[in-house]
């Protein structure tokens, strides 16, 4: 399954979840948040939320700012 994670193309397993997408980019377990197709996916739902072909995944964290 092909998805876009933070603007880059990734090929994941057919049944990949949000948790798999995070693993694919080596995201740490804490201090990050995920939106799929513009909607927040709660941490508790990462492991059970399946992605779909062409999904847009954004993984954010805090950076210096403000």
């Amino acid at each position: 399954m092909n998805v876009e994670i933070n603007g880059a193309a990734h090929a994941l397993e057919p049944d990949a979840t949000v948790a798999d997408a995070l693993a694919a980019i080596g995201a740490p377990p804490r201090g990050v948040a995920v939106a799929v197709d513009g909607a927040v996916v709660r941490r508790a739902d990462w492991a059970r939320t399946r992605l779909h072909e062409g999904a847009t995944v954004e993984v954010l964290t805090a950076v210096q700012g403000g």
Partner: protein
Amino acid sequence: MGEKLAERPGGTGEKLAERPGGTGGKRAERPRGRGEKLAERPMSAESWVVGGREIGSRLVTGTGGAANLEILERALLASGTTLTTVAMRRIDAVTGTGVLDLLRRLEIEVLPNTAGCRTAAEAVLTAQLAREALETDLVKLEVVADERTLLPDPIELLDAAEQLVDAGFTVLPYTNDDPVLARRLEAVGCAAVMPLGSPIGTGLGIRNPHNIEMIVAEAGVPVVLDAGIGTASEAAQAMELGCSAVLLATAVTRAADPERMAHAMRLAVEAGYAARHAGRIPKRYWAQASSPEID
């Protein structure tokens, strides 16, 4: 002209006598959940309360603009701050969660902002992501109109504020120095209002002190002077005008010596707060001798 000035005893003096502790009195008049706590609490020179949570320092800092985390750490420590803003961006393999790790180590609470958002919808999504990532319901709400001025877009700002309050956030909106907009933001349930002194990053200080004073006079929530501070005297002025706290970043992080400027800001905020509550003398037109006359 001299008389006129004498009639109006220093603006801030009178007000202080009426309601010791700035916002305290007004809070008591219209208690609303979180507000009640503040009225019970004795005023402290160092701590203040926003959305029912006690903040240990009246200097709120930003982390943007620091050359590296080591310089940032020294500046944060010198500032004495206990609440510091961060922005939300795509995670990148190089920086990872470095700034978060630093703030955690220094036991400084994070205040995520929605910097870069131009619409209410973008700001609401960013705030939701921040709450998820950082496990805080605090948000510094920023919705700017354009890159050139970075001035808040009042229509989008008010819309986003209302949505976020409804979603349970403690909303601290970065707003124009407009007393009417400040009132509207408070009315939709914002926990503070944060008017600019001048545009972000300009260091032009407080361009309309009278507006800030009017916002303070009307507000039942803390007023935080946010943006535009360039040097210590301006941070002191914000406090003298009655603000509960000052939020600044660039003035420290881009100073030639950030650590030293952070220390200066800390002293300035303390001095301004003390001066505000000491009750300044009225302004006079003509001199008044402070030594006894010669017989």
